[in-house]
Each structure stands twice: as structure tokens, then as C-alpha cells.
């Protein structure tokens, strides 16, 4: 070969020559994944703040912080992916409204404002307390964060609570909107058979919630164990139930999507079958087996009443399976859609890169980002219910 273009992908059948360079890679797989985790984590905190589900009280504030950290990183894969990242703001300065992408900055920005406000109200008592007890730079930081309001009387806290409730009520449709919208970016394209589907936004949204709840379940178990605080049975069970319910619906909708596609059997269905049995087979297997086995385990957990330890082990296992399955689903949509040629007469085999701006390493680093920021934020603004007492006890 004669120094072929480095990123050219091999193919079978007939594909347009320009298609041998796959436009969207690993970073665009990670992007809807991160956005989805935001939606899921936020919904859990809203279950407590809006619907008064007290089982979620221990993790309500932690879920808010988690959502915020992931939202902060949601635009980063896009930024890394752009051919001209320094011009990213052109889409915000002069949005071309007929583009599904143009509103991203505004939708995400609006949601960021809602989330930040809610976090501020949720952690105001801590900020006020610490602005009085901390010393040096931290004291300045906390004082600045209080925005000059240090009233933590019962009346003021009740007022805060009212605001949080209102923000959470606005936040639920915003979270749903943000992620349904990500699904629309793919589903609205008529050029790609694998994406062009009315169910796409719904599947994206529901699987997003599943993955976000799964993330919280894993973090709840891991972080609480690390901090040697006791896990609460009712919280664990509620997480399992919410995960189960959303998973049940998303499994049916995804199944419907495939059944409809096979049943309609439009021109090119043969190539779609080749895609499913070929390059996309591992991804689809991970998605299907992962979500089906997680569903079975969760069903068993909800029906039977195992000991706490067993429950925790299997809940964590099924949550991990679901996080992997949803990541595989994102891969199958984003990469799968581009592996199916627009000619419908050929397949392109995407070649993942490890290094480089758009490689797997970049994706991993960007995905690790929210966890690092969460670790720092949780130190600055401890979301633990018993925060004060535990620290006091340790100090003694």
C-alpha cells in the first residue's frame, strides 16, 4: 500500500470513498454516555426532592453533586472532537436554529444553571457553617460561596427547600429534554438508516436514566463502604426498583425497534443483517447479555429478600453490568450507524485508535474527569447526612 491515509477504515461491499474516514469516533460514544449519567443521577435526587421518596434521602445531595460533575464534563468530548475547537463558540454566538446541534449550548447551559442553583441551595447550610469555622483561603472561598447570605434559621431553610423543590420540578423535564435531545441529534438524520428512527430519543432517554441510577448505586455502595458508613436497606432496595422499572421499559422499546426494523425489511435489510452479525456483533452481545442478565438479577433481588450482604453484591454487579451495557448501546448506535454505509451496499469497519486526540485514552481520561471533580467537590461540600458527627467522632 502507498502510505494510505492513516485513519482510512477497511470495508466490504461498496461504500462511498469519503465514507472510509469515519467522522465520529470514541469521543462521540462517550458524549451521550456522560450526558445520560447526568440525567439519571439527577432523576434520583428529584425522586426525593419532588416526590418525597425518603428512601433516597441518604443519596439525594450526593446525586446532585454527581450530576453536576458529569454535566461539567459533558461538552468536553465534543470539544476534543471538533476539527477547529477554538471556534466552538461559533455555534453559540450565531446558532443556526434549523440544526439539531445548535441548541446544545443553550440546553446544556440552562440545565447547568438549574443544577448549580439547586446545589447551592442544598449546600447552603454547610457553606455558611464552614465560612465561620474554616481558616485562610478556604474561609474566603466559603464566604464567597454563601453570596453574603448567612441566615440558616428554620424559616430560611424552609424557604431554601421550597426553591430546591421548584428547581427540581423544572429540572426533571430539563434533564429529560437534554437527553431526549441528544437522541434527536441521531434519530433525525434521514441519511443513516441505523439512526433514523422515531424511537431513538426515547431509547436514549430511558437508557440514560438506567445508566445514571446504576452509576449512583455503584457510587453509593463504593463510597459509603470506603467511608465506613452504613448502607441503608430501604435506599438500596429503592435503587434496585427504580433501575428495574426503567430497564423493563427500555428493554421493550429497544426490542420493538429491532422487531419493527426486521418486520419492515426495507431495501438494504441484508446489509443490516451483515452489520449485526459482523462488526457490531460483540457490541450487541454485550448490550443484550448485559442488560438481560442485569434484569434477571434485579428481578430476583426484588422478588426474594436476600441478606444485606448478598443484596449489595448482586445490586452492584447488576449495576456494573448495566453501565457496561449502556456504554455498549452508545457504541452500537454511534459507531454502528457509521459502519453501515449510506449506499446500503457495504460495511465499514471502524478502527478504534488508542492514542491521539480522539482515541480511547482521551475518552478514558475525559470519563475519569467527573470522578476526580466529584472527589474534590465532595470534600469541599460534604453531601453526607451524618457529615458533622462522623468527623467529630474521628477527631476525638
Amino acid at each position: 500500500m502507498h502510505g494510505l491515509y492513516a485513519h482510512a477504515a477497511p470495508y466490504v461491499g461498496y461504500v462511498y470513498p469519503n465514507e472510509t474516514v469515519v467522522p465520529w469516533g470514541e469521543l462521540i460514544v462517550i458524549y451521550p454516555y456522560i450526558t445520560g449519567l447526568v440525567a439519571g443521577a439527577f432523576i434520583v435526587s428529584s425522586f426525593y426532592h419532588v416526590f418525597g421518596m425518603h428512601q433516597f434521602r441518604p443519596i439525594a445531595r450526593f446525586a446532585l453533586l454527581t450530576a453536576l460533575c458529569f454535566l461539567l464534563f459533558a461538552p468536553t468530548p465534543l470539544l476534543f472532537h471538533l476539527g477547529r475547537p477554538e471556534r466552538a463558540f461559533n455555534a453559540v454566538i450565531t446558532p443556526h436554529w434549523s440544526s439539531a446541534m445548535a441548541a446544545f449550548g443553550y440546553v446544556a447551559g440552562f440545565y447547568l444553571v438549574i443544577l448549580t442553583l439547586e446545589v447551592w441551595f442544598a449546600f447552603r447550610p454547610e457553606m455558611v457553617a464552614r465560612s465561620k469555622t474554616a481558616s485562610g483561603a478556604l474561609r474566603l472561598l466559603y464566604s464567597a460561596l454563601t453570596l453574603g447570605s448567612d441566615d440558616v434559621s428554620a424559616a430560611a431553610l424552609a424557604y431554601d427547600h421550597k426553591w430546591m423543590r421548584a428547581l427540581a420540578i423544572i429540572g426533571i423535564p430539563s434533564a429529560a429534554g437534554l437527553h431526549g435531545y441528544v437522541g434527536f441529534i441521531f434519530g433525525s438524520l434521514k441519511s443513516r438508516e441505523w439512526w433514523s428512527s422515531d424511537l431513538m430519543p426515547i431509547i436514549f432517554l430511558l437508557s440514560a436514566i438506567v445508566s445514571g441510577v446504576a452509576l449512583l448505586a455503584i457510587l453509593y455502595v463504593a463510597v459509603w463502604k470506603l467511608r465506613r458508613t452504613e448502607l441503608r436497606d430501604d435506599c438500596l432496595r429503592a435503587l434496585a426498583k427504580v433501575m428495574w422499572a426503567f430497564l423493563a421499559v427500555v428493554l421493550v422499546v429497544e426490542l420493538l425497534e429491532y422487531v419493527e426494523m426486521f418486520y419492515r425489511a426495507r431495501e438494504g435489510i441484508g446489509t443490516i443483517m451483515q452489520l449485526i452479525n459482523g462488526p457490531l456483533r460483540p457490541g450487541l452481545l454485550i448490550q443484550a447479555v448485559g442488560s438481560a442478565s442485569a434484569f434477571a438479577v434485579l428481578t430476583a433481588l426484588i422478588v426474594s429478600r436476600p441478606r444485606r450482604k448478598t443484596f449489595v453484591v448482586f445490586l452492584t454487579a447488576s449495576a456494573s453490568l448495566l453501565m457496561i451495557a449502556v456504554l455498549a448501546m452508545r457504541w452500537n448506535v454511534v459507531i454502528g450507524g457509521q459502519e453501515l454505509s449510506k449506499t446500503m451496499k457495504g460495511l465499514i469497519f471502524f478502527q478504534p485508535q488508542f492514542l491521539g486526540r480522539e482515541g480511547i485514552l482521551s475518552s478514558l481520561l475525559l470519563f475519569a474527569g467527573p470522578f476526580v471533580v466529584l472527589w474534590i467537590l465532595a470534600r469541599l461540600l460534604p453531601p453526607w447526612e451524618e457529615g458533622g458527627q462522623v468527623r467529630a467522632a474521628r477527631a476525638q
Partner: protein
Amino acid sequence: MDEEEDSQRRQQERRDFLRIVGGAIAFGATAVTAHNFASRDATAADGRPQPAPAIPGYDWSKHRWAFGVDVNRCIGCLRCDVACKIENDVVRDPNHFRTWVERYVYLEGERRPRIDSQADPQNIAAAGSDGDYRFDNRYKNAEVMKAFFVPKLCNQCEHPACVQVCPTGATFRTKDGVVLIDQSYCIGCQYCIQACPYGARYLDPNKGVADKCTWCYHRITKGLDPACVAVCPTHCRIFGDLNDPASEINQFIRSNRVQVLKPETGNGPHVFYAGIESEVS
């Protein structure tokens, strides 16, 4: 008593004022949005009409360009590929094309055609270098029932999906019917590349922005033919102005049964093909 009435009146006034202002804002926003959606051509990203390009002696409102391809004449020499790459500074490799040619071959006893093009590994090997393009001789000893070449290029659609999805408005449709890219404004998100059903767009790896065929806009606005049309030895590529009844493109469309590619997308492509069949898409 008077004071109370007074304050009530003032409150009422304030409410009325807010209602009017709110209504005005809502109306304005709706109007702007509706305008942005409604005006499909020659509008900048913010919805203002674009200023006409400063091309001496050229009035873009007086032309409506169109392209014709007479498939029966194409011999697959690929001079068009090379001319285009030189004229438009396209990356000289087998994976980035503003125009390319597809070969359709029906072998005796086979019902579906075998299709290949410039990205085919055997053709790449036959060409001998990244900058040259050639169809190899793989069917030399085969029994060929039917074969033809199909040149492809940007269809400069009436309702281009690429323009619809561009988040910045960097890509736009001109008054004379050509879709262009402002490469100094494109952010390289590649959504347009995904949206084009014809695979006509690619990311220029050196510039980090989208690129595609412009029908050599810099030439046609000076009265010249696009480079691929100019070099075609068999005159299978036809270019001209639909507004001119005597133009060659109008004669071509009148004297042939022409069709466009993938009409079901609703994009309204403006490259007219004579002599293709349904396997070509």
C-alpha cells in the same frame, strides 16, 4: 382610601406594562424563529440576508446552475478526479474526493452489480501512487454482461440536509443554487458529513473543516466550466444555467430521460443523470 386606589391603579398599570412587554418579546422571538426556519437560501446564520459576493460582473440572482451526467459517455479515465484535486487543493489520497467515479459491472449470471471506486484496495494498487487514480483490470478474463461508469459529485440540493444540520450556518446555499462552506467559520463538527446522503462531504484533515464539491464556484462565476467538465475527454459531464433556455444543460435535460439520485430524501438534488438504473444510488 385614595392612596389605596392609587396604589391599586399603579399595580394594574405595572401588570399591563409587563403583559405588553412579555407579549412583544414572545412575538419577536416567534417571528425571528419562524423567519430563520422559513428562509432556506442565501441567509446568514443570524437570519439576515447575505450580501451578494463581490465578484466583478457577476450577479448571482441571474443564474440557476445545474449539472448533467451522461453515463453512456463516461469511460472511467478519472481525469476529472485528478483535475478536481489539483484545481481545488483536495488531499491527494484515495479517501477524500470532491468528485469520484463508480464502476458498475454485471457479470454473466449475476443479478446484482459489482461496484468499486477509487478507495478500492485493488484500484489503489493499480494506480501506483496516492495522487493518481485508476480502475484496475480485474474483469479482463471475466464474462461481463453489462458495465458502466457513474461520476459522482455534490448534488447542490434544493433543500440540502447538510445546510439544515450545520450548527453555525458556516455552510449555506447561494442564490444561484450552489451549496458552499465558509471554511473560516466552520467548527469541524462533521454533522454535515453525517447528514449528506450521497457521501459527498469529508473533513479536510489539514484544515480541520468540512469540504466538498462547489461546482468550482470560483470558475463558474467567471464564466468558466468546472474543472472536471473542462477536462472530460468524452463530454459526459454537462454544466450550465437553467435560467438560459438555450444552455447545454437545458438541452441535455430536454433531450434525455433524466433522473436524480435518492429523490426520496426530499433534498432535491440538482445533478441530473441520463443512462443510470435503480442500482445506482
